[in-house]
């Protein structure tokens, strides 16, 4: 099955053929956006795991900042415990995303097979799934960060007094160089999105391995 490297197929060189199959990122984005917004219910289920994890993370961040504002620094062991909880939360979230997306791949086996019949490469399928996960992760994270921050701000307000919250480091960085409120907000969103995309890798690879012939199959 060896061929000379400069052989032509269908009248074109190998490089030309490679160049002629494409899925621009803008188009992949458009298709993925469609999937996310039209299957909103399913997207919300996947995004809700991210929502909860990021809400938890942002709540912890906010609690630490509020404590600092009230002059009640949390000691290292306490902070370590909270960090550990957040990591566990993220792990559970990741498993949830993997599960939901694997289900999605199973449901969409015919569409994926069809796309391969239309000329899609494996990497196109991976691209679409990762963009979908990034979108769900992004929106879930933003919503989660807002919710987590709000709830913790209210709770801290009642605990240490809303006046004290005025001393909170609202900016990106606080006076002592560590993260401020906005900084934590950004970090939470980025963390949630990255978590989403990384969790989607396994399902995306599974989707890419489906064959074009699957478009003809009558059952899963």
């Amino acid at each position, binding site marked *: *099955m060896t*061929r000379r490297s400069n052989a032509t*197929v*269908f009248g*074109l060189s*190998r490089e030309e*053929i*490679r160049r*002629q*199959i*494409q*899925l*621009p990122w803008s*188009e992949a984005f458009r*298709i993925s956006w*469609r*999937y996310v917004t*039209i*299957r909103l219910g399913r997207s919300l289920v996947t995004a809700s795991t991210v929502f909860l994890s990021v809400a938890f993370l942002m709540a912890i961040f906010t609690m630490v900042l509020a404590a600092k504002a009230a002059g009640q620094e949390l000691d290292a062991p306490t902070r370590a415990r909270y960090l550990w909880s957040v990591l566990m939360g993220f792990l559970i979230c990741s498993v949830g995303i993997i599960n939901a997306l694997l289900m999605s791949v199973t449901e969409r086996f*015919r*569409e994926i*097979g*069809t*796309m*391969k*019949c*239309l*000329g*899609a*490469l*494996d990497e*196109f399928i991976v691209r679409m799934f990762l963009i979908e996960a990034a979108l769900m992760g992004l929106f879930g994270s933003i919503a989660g960060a807002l919710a987590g921050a709000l709830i913790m701000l209210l709770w801290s307000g009642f605990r240490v007094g809303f006046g004290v919250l005025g001393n909170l480091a609202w900016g990106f960085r606080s006076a002592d160089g560590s993260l401020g409120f906005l900084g934590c907000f950004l970090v939470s969103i980025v963390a949630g999105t990255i978590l989403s995309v990384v969790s989607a890798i396994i399902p995306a690879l599974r989707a890419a391995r489906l*064959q*074009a*012939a699957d*478009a*003809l199959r*009558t059952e899963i």
Partner: protein
Amino acid sequence: MVATEPMMPPTGEMKERLQEAAKRLEPMMEQVSEFIVRTRDVRKVYQMGKVEVEALRGVTLDIKRGEYISIMGPSGSGKSTLFNMIGGLDKPTSGSVYINEVDLAQLDAYELAWLRCRTIGYIFQTFNLIPVMTALENVTLPMIFAGVPEDERRDRGMELLKRVGLAERWNHKPAELSGGQQQRVAIARALANDPAIILADEPTGNLDLKTGREIIQLLKELNEEKGVTIISATHDLKMLDVSDRVIWIRDGRIAKIEDRSKIQLEAALAVEEELVEGVE
């Protein structure tokens, strides 16, 4: 060269030389243009647990450019397996499949994708439209993979939808279209990159008699208009009438190949006519 008088047919030496040149070129022309799909002793064996199932036992056939071929046979005859081989959807256990004289087994993933994108158009029994996209977006999806710019995509897509009679429904999603309409969109999609072959797997399988007839009529028209080769794996006897040749498969082998002129289907069609008239 300016023509000042009508050209006379070549005579004498000129004629001889032209004839010789034509003879030299003939085998090359035949190789390039006559057969678009060739299979050579294709065998396929499936491993089902401990049992080996021979789905195809040596199928050799040649399909000419522009032909309308129907592959017919009972369930389990190997019809679908042969279809998959010809369409590059599966690899034979032994033997070869050639499309445009290119051995499919030699193609890497990119070349296979290129083939599926530009040379072959697929039509499925279950229509297989992408549910989250509109009719126009479904039709233009292969064009995206082929790198066609957006404006050109839209124009060509609308033209194709117009040809299949669905121009006003360009913005509808598959859920808003009937079975027959979805299959028309699927046909328009199959034609997106002007392919040389259309592979249809039971295209009328999920359609009622009347709609099935319309679809078959549409396929025949496209076959004649564009010269696109149509290869259909089907149970539908209505296909017999429009096919140039019918390949009957049984037990993984070709049972017989019928030419259009020899097809006898009055009896079968008469029965169906009665049924249709009863419904109408």
